[in-house]
């Protein structure tokens, strides 16, 4: 009988097994697993061996192309064979284009642009999908059709790039945008209600609690009129702290607030981190408070606002500011909460300290110990100790206060070092070897110099000294090193963002591209060669972020069919396969359409002149790169339907006629055949309307 027992156990096991096979979705689990596997074979990485023949062949090519040995080395460091991917990704501001550029490093290939502040037809951004995002960026009710994108910031967790979101400011219109890095699409634009220009946007606090937007040209806050003659009384600067709701992937405007600042032209900002967590640093120019049109003797405005030897570094305790805001210490200006200068001073939120005049970069070192100010008109970078700043604030070591009553910390008490680098220091980033890199605009060079403090042990040179300068072509603005403004920079690569290209490329007419130059910063010491030039002929990029590529996890198809990229979830009203139809309700017509290679269903849509049309369309595709376009000529309609995406658009049927609609992406061998007719009938009702539902 003992033999019977295992059999019952087996039967039980079978019952459980079979039951489980119904409950647990084995094929789904298997599919998830195989999706993760890289099925493609790895490129054969057998070591290269050069023999006499190959050396002769390569030498011949080099000589025919007039390449020097260092050129060959640069080529080998940057060339990517087809199908291999870059180690780093740059997100660069697109300047006047109002876009963001996504560039691979070290290949320096433009991977794509991301439409942000400007309607962009390829991505179907604003045609009309995305119109509501753009509409949130209106100024005083007026559509703004471009942006001057300046400073992108990647979202951070603990001061490290986390690869989830990108923020970017629009200097021309004082706006901020949020880009979701899962689908590289703009999800939100917020317009600053206080001002019309900004510059210090965007910089994040170490956990992206806040996105900092510092203003630029002082105006009356809240966008009101005041005579320029009343500058000191009526004009103000500001810094806005936009609260970021990471779970929602949006700025929470209701939890955001601003600080009123003196009408110095605030410029760049940076957030403290680690040792200086809780502080925000922002610099300024024109503390002379001269105004355009107001000349001092024979001196014009630009000279007038550089009369003094120093401007002011702003030091803001954002954690204190957050508490004051929470306690109701802010007043509404144009509906937006603003902490006044007086409150900020009384609560110990704001103080100033002198900085070399007309600076640009204010860059906190990775450990948060120092802040480096690059004063464009001073050959030094000035290094401040954040510890000394905190001590000076605690001890109230003021050298006085400015005309607005803001205490000014004694310069000598907070300054750590001044390092002479050359002419026109502009912006600084860091590497993993204890070096700092500063762009020198007038010298057209990148300076490598040594940090002191705990960084002194990381390099072999004397601290606080220039190590080397590499000439770049030409007039470098910002620079970006690999994760160079995070708490753990990677070194390896640096890109000089040059304003002029002059003779570097074939002339493109009087308007020349910018020049991004890749610089190899992998070796310590004085060797720091330029490897590659990349022309940027789309706009003038300002700042960029360079992130390790494997930190980004972009989707290649949307997670499910019927996806709404705006909510990043399935749209429950999205059209499903088999449910295509056209529904009429008086003058309201709703089209339920699907798109799949190579067919729109339904492919004939007949309406009457003046009908209000809601057109819903879902891409049924679930394979990589199977994007469909959908355009109707004459209507400014062009959608980019990425795999799985669902869209809903509204428009009014116009002049009677026959409007072919077609797929604007070459999706398949029968792409040209992927079309339909949108027929608008005259309103006299002579033609009978037929209910059409085709598949």
């Amino acid at each position: 009988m003992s033999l019977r027992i295992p059999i019952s156990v087996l039967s039980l096991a079978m019952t459980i097994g079979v039951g489980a096979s119904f409950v647990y979705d084995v094929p789904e689990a298997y599919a998830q697993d195989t999706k993760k596997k890289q099925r493609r074979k790895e490129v054969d990485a057998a070591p290269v061996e050069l023999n006499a023949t190959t050396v002769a062949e390569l030498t011949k090519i080099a000589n025919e192309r007039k390449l020097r040995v260092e050129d060959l080395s640069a080529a080998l460091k940057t060339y990517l064979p087809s199908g291999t991917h870059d180690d780093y990704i740059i997100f660069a501001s697109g300047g006047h284009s109002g876009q963001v550029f996504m560039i691979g490093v070290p290949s320096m290939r433009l991977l794509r642009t991301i439409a942000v502040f400007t309607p962009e037809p390829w991505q179907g951004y604003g045609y009309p999908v995305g119109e509501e995002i753009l509409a949130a960026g209106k100024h005083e009710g007026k559509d703004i059709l471009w942006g001057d994108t300046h400073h992108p910031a990647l979202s951070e967790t603990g001061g490290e790039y986390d690869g989830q979101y990108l923020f970017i400011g629009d200097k021309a219109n004082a706006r901020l945008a949020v880009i979701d890095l899962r689908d590289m699409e703009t999800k939100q634009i917020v317009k600053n209600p206080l001002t019309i220009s900004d510059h210090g946007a965007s910089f994040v606090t170490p956990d992206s609690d806040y996105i900092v937007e510092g203003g630029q040209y002082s105006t009356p806050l809240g966008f009101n009129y005041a005579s320029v003659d009343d500058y000191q009384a009526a004009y103000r600067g500001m810094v806005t702290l936009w609260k970021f709701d990471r779970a929602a992937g949006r700025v929470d405007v209701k939890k955001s607030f601003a600080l009123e600042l003196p009408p110095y032209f605030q410029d760049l900002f940076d957030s403290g981190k680690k040792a200086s967590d809780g502080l925000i640093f922002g610099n300024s120019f024109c503390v002379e408070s001269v105004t355009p049109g107001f000349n001092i003797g024979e001196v014009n405005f630009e000279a007038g606002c550089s009369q003094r030897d120093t401007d002011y570094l702003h030091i803001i305790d954002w954690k204190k500011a957050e508490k004051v805001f929470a306690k109701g210490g802010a007043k509404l200006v144009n509906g937006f909460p603003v902490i006044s200068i007086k409150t900020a001073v009384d609560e110990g939120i704001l103080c100033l300290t002198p900085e070399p005049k007309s600076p640009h970069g204010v860059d906190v070192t990775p450990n948060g110990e120092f802040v480096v100010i690059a004063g464009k008109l001073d050959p030094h970078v000035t290094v401040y100790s954040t510890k000394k700043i905190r001590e000076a604030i605690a001890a109230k070591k003021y050298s006085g206060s400015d005309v607005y009553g803001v205490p000014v910390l004694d310069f000598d008490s907070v300054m750590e070092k001044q390092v002479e680098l050359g002419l026109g220091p502009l912006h600084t980033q860091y590497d993993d070897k204890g070096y700092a890199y500063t762009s020198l605009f007038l010298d057209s060079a990148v300076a490598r110099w040594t940090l002191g403090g705990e960084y002194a042990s990381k390099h072999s040179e004397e601290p606080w000294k220039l190590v080397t300068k590499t000439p770049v072509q030409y007039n470098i603005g910002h620079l970006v090193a690999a994760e160079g403004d995070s708490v753990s920079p990677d070194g390896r690569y640096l890109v000089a963002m040059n304003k002029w290209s002059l003779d570097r490329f074939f002339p493109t007419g009087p308007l020349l591209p910018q020049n991004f130059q890749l610089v190899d910063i992998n070796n310590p010491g004085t060797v720091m060669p330029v490897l590659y030039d990349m022309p940027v002929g789309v706009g003038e990029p300002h700042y960029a972020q360079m992130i390790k590529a494997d930190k980004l996890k972009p989707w290649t198809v949307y997670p499910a069919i019927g996806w709404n990229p705006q909510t990043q979830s399935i749209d429950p009203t999205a059209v499903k396969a088999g449910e295509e139809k056209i529904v009429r309700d008086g003058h309201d017509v709703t089209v339920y359409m699907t798109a799949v290679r190579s067919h729109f269903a339904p492919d004939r849509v007949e309406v009457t002149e003046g009908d209000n049309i809601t057109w819903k369309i879902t891409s049924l595709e679930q394979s990589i790169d199977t994007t469909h376009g959908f355009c109707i000529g004459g209507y400014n309609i062009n959608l980019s339907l990425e795999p799985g995406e669902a869209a809903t658009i509204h428009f009014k049927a116009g002049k009677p006629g026959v409007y072919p609609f077609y797929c604007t992406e070459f999706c398949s061998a029968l792409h040209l055949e992927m079309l339909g007719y949108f027929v608008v009938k005259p309103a006299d009702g002579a033609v009978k309307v037929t209910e059409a539902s085709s598949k």
Partner: protein
Amino acid sequence: MSRHSLFSLMGPRVSDQELLTRGARYAAPTVTLALARILLVVSIFFPYWSMMLEAPQYPDGLEIVAFVNTLAGDVQEVDGLNHYIGMRPLGEAASFERASSVWMIVAMFLLIEGAASVRSRWAVLLVLPALLFPLGFIVDLQFWLHHFGQNLDPHAPLSSSVKPFTAPAIGVGEIGQFRTIARLETGWWLAAAGSLVTVVGLVLHRRAYKPLHDAAKHRGAIGVAG
């Protein structure tokens, strides 16, 4: 049922004395056939068959994976491509088989359990479905591949360039710009191993119970052991 027919079905009883002295001999078929059952049930959780489709524009390939009860992998994409040549959606193939397979496996499981319980040659008949199941799977698969490949919609866009075809159930085929590589997967091999173990079980079954039969016949008596 008469005592005789019951005997011919169940076979001779094994006395407790016999079990104690030669336990291993009788345990062997029981344990072996238990293993066969386990293999069969476990196979449900693994793919039986896969077809990889390679083409220039699919550097990672497309993969169709068949479980006994469902299809997985890039079914939607392959269906999308197939509509150009007029092939019906893969989901319409072998729908009866997929719907009933788990129950068929339950039945086969119980039949093997029956085989382990009887002490007669009926055991052979009882394990026969499970024994032939892996072979049957391949035959059925090839039938459907043939049926689908041969019955293309003549109005399909590419009907002029892609003629009816039969993709091999195992091995390499070619259709349009695609190369198809079909192979048996873990689940099938588990079921096949189950078959093999079943054969071993049968041999052990025969070794254990044949002598009892022969002895019973020899004595010409029924129910000696009872």
